[in-house]
């Protein structure tokens, strides 16, 4: 097979920071090539260069053996490279037809538009992907799953040669990914290649023909799928071996912390009942759209449940707001650290003190600086947050340290029930295990933990029990200490 895309010795800097320091790799026509690497390894910069959004500082980019000197988005689309971005990059205010057709219209360079042409382009793309969505629907009104399909259709408009998928599993469900890959495989005969960027190594192993690792802006090697495994890949991108230990809950009488009965919320989840005991880490697993996060948001008072009871420490609680939830002893580390967890521009200290600021006030209603500083120092120290001082803006921290700040903010409230929703998304592999260790330590001190994650292995390894959710309902409960990760994964997929 010939190389469709070839990168030679690519360098790229952003105002003084070298993002890429000599990247070499190639994508063959018709292969599924995976690009793996930790945060800051240069994956997203590489995508920008391949898609023509930003030029490389130096190095060669060849398509079908021809060097490209001035890459622009239009140029790359013209040459058959399409990117499906993590955030889908849709235009929420426009119709399905327009979203699918607009990049092609832009590429052709039409000044005037004909709606019949737009619809024809959109229909053709949908026919290629073999799906059917109402062309006149406004994309922002569609459920997320269909929005993703629109993004996929858009990629299939032109003469597609290389489809770049930027962390697709952050927004696509497994069934949708499978569906997408099936479409791609169908078209492999035409020589379409896929470049799949991900940090979820188990997914990479499931689909790749070849894998290229990226570390600190350099390629660390390209290996065929057959010659690698999870451990080798991990070592490739982190530079060191990482060992996982399973969580074990020592047998002893335990107090019931939380009792949830028949909790329901229309269009979110229905009839949820479960218990949580002190010291437990209760995993909740399920596909995207199963209702895991919605359940957490209801327990935390962001979008309260319609009916059902929540009993904390033997006392029934009405939870209608975050304040109610915190009062009852809940803490929630949200799904999206950057938009929901942190105030990025503010300091580490401000972020840690945020949930407790009223408790820092003295009799005059003024913030007691000593109390505030004491609180912040305690949590910076006990969670080993790597930061010169607590006045540094939290946005300058690495993903792992940022997540510790969020966790610290909530541990400071001394919660009875700590809910973690995707606690290690976008966190480096080494930092992941230390965050898991923090969670285990606090569970051991008697906090009840509810652990929600997209990554089934994370839930399986770090919980003693796992609840499996599907279509807004609890389907089964698994003793995670006795059942293997693969079995839990299978149960999640079939429900």
């Amino acid at each position, binding site marked *: 097979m010939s190389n469709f895309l070839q990168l030679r010795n690519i360098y790229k800097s952003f105002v003084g920071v070298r993002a890429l320091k000599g990247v070499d790799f190639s994508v063959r026509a018709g292969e599924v090539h995976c690009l793996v690497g930790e945060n800051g390894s240069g994956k997203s910069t590489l995508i920008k260069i391949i898609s023509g959004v930003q030029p490389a500082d130096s190095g060669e980019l060849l398509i079908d053996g021809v060097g490209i000197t001035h890459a622009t988005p239009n140029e790359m689309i013209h040459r058959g490279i399409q990117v499906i971005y993590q955030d889908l990059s849709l*235009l929420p205010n426009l119709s399905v037809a327009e979203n699918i057709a607009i990049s092609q*219209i832009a590429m052709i360079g039409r000044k005037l538009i004909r709606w019949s042409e737009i619809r024809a382009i959109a229909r053709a793309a949908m026919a290629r992907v073999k799906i059917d969505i109402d062309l006149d629907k406004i994309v922002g009104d569609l459920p997320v799953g269909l929005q993703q399909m629109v993004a996929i259709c858009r990629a299939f408009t032109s003469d597609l040669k290389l489809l770049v998928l930027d962390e697709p599993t952050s927004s696509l469900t497994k069934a949708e990914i499978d569906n997408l890959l099936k479409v791609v495989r169908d078209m492999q005969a035409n020589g379409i290649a896929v470049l799949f960027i991900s940090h979820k190594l188990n997914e990479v192993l499931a689909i790749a023909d070849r894998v290229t690792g990226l570390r600190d802006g350099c390629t660390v090697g390209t290996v065929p799928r057959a010659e690698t495994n999870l451990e080798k890949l991990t070592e490739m991108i982190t530079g060191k071996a990482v060992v996982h230990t399973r969580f074990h809950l020592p047998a002893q009488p335990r107090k019931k912390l939380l009792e949830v009965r028949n909790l329901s919320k229309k269009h979110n989840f229905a009839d949820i009942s479960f218990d949580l005991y002190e010291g437990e880490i209760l995993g909740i697993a399920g596909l995207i759209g199963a209702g895991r996060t919605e359940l957490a948001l209801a327990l935390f008072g962001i979008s309260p449940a319609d009916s059902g009871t929540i009993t904390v420490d033997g006392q029934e609680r009405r939870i209608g707001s975050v304040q109610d939830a915190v009062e009852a002893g809940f803490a929630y580390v949200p799904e999206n650290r950057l938009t929901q967890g942190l105030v990025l521009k503010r300091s580490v200290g401000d972020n840690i003190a945020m949930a407790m600021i009223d408790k820092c006030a003295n009799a005059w209603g003024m913030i007691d600086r000593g109390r505030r500083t004491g609180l912040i120092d305690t949590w910076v120290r006990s969670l080993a947050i790597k930061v010169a001082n607590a006045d540094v803006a939290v946005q300058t921290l690495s993903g792992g340290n940022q997540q510790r700040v969020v966790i610290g903010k909530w541990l400071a409230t001394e919660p009875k029930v700590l809910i973690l929703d995707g606690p290690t998304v976008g966190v480096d592999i080494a930092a992941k295990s230390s965050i898991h260790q923090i969670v285990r330590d606090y569970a051991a001190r008697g906090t009840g933990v509810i652990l929600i994650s997209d990554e089934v292995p994370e839930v399986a390894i770090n919980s003693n029990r796992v609840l499996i959710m599907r279509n807004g309902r609890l389907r089964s409960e698994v003793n995670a200490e006795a059942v293997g990760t693969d079995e839990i994964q299978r149960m999640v997929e079939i429900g």
Partner: protein
Amino acid sequence: MSGPVSAHSGSLGGYAVKALLKRNEFYLAVLILVLCMLITAINPAFLSPQNILGFLKTASVNGIMAVGVLFVLILGGTPDLSFTAIAQVVEYVVVLITLAFGGNIVIALLLACLMGAAMGAVNGFVIHYFRVTTIIVSIATANLYYGMLYVLTGGSVIFIVHPMFKRFAEFQLVSFADAAGGTWGISLIPLMWLATLVLGWFILTRTFLGRAIFAMGGNEIAAQRIGINTLWVRVFVFAFVGLLSGVAAIAHTTIVLSAIPNSIVGKELEIIAAVVLGGASLFGGKGTITGTFLGVLLFAILRNGLVLLNISSYWYDVSVGIAITAGISISAWQQLKAQRARVNVNVEEAAAQ
């Protein structure tokens, strides 16, 4: 003239009715109809062609500028506040130049468009290059332009304008004799408004540029990735706003036949309110020409109606205030309700255990 978002919607029947009920324009049109009936019931003179043509003519100045405001709101974010200052400056300068050098109405219009577009484009460049919010930049340029106008001209009122403005104002496409022996007819000024509406509609729904404006309003980063030249689109929009301010300036001059340096400035918030009432979103990416037209029309009818009903014009501001406050509250409430009813998870009917 249908709105850009649904201009291509083909399916009819129940779906179309539902879509109609969802649209702002529908409620606005109903409100206008009710208002018209109320006013007519008390004073039938409201429905006379003379009266209708009269208030349409007066509303033209705001109406032309409102199209520009719509473009800025669709592009996204906070509104531009400088367009009235631009119109004011253009009006004064064009009146002075035509007095000094003569000329004809076409040249005056071209000059006004050019000046307006240039002043508007400055906003676009500053906003794009320095990444500052529209509201701050446009307050700055509005103060600068308007202040300079006063400083350089002393702010004196020009009572006599070049006679061509009067000729233009009196030109009637169709004239009729009225009972008093005078004539009335369709003047060119409302037609300027109509032309602006058609131009705006054409750009928004029939050109790639128009769709690019919507795209940027919806998701600027995605628009960039698609390959839209965001600098050019932004500069175009602000230059277009300026250009329409120039057109409005000419319309205004022909109506008032004088140049008073504070006769347009101060109307900007009312015009923005009309466009917002017409369904344009302050979050960008949403808005229609029809809605904009109806919004301006509503305010024009309100003003005219109060006069015909012999109610003090003081109540005009109150009624506009109530209209805008109630309008935004209702639409915000509807949005909240829709948000709460959103389907996050397709919950299975019964647990299959």
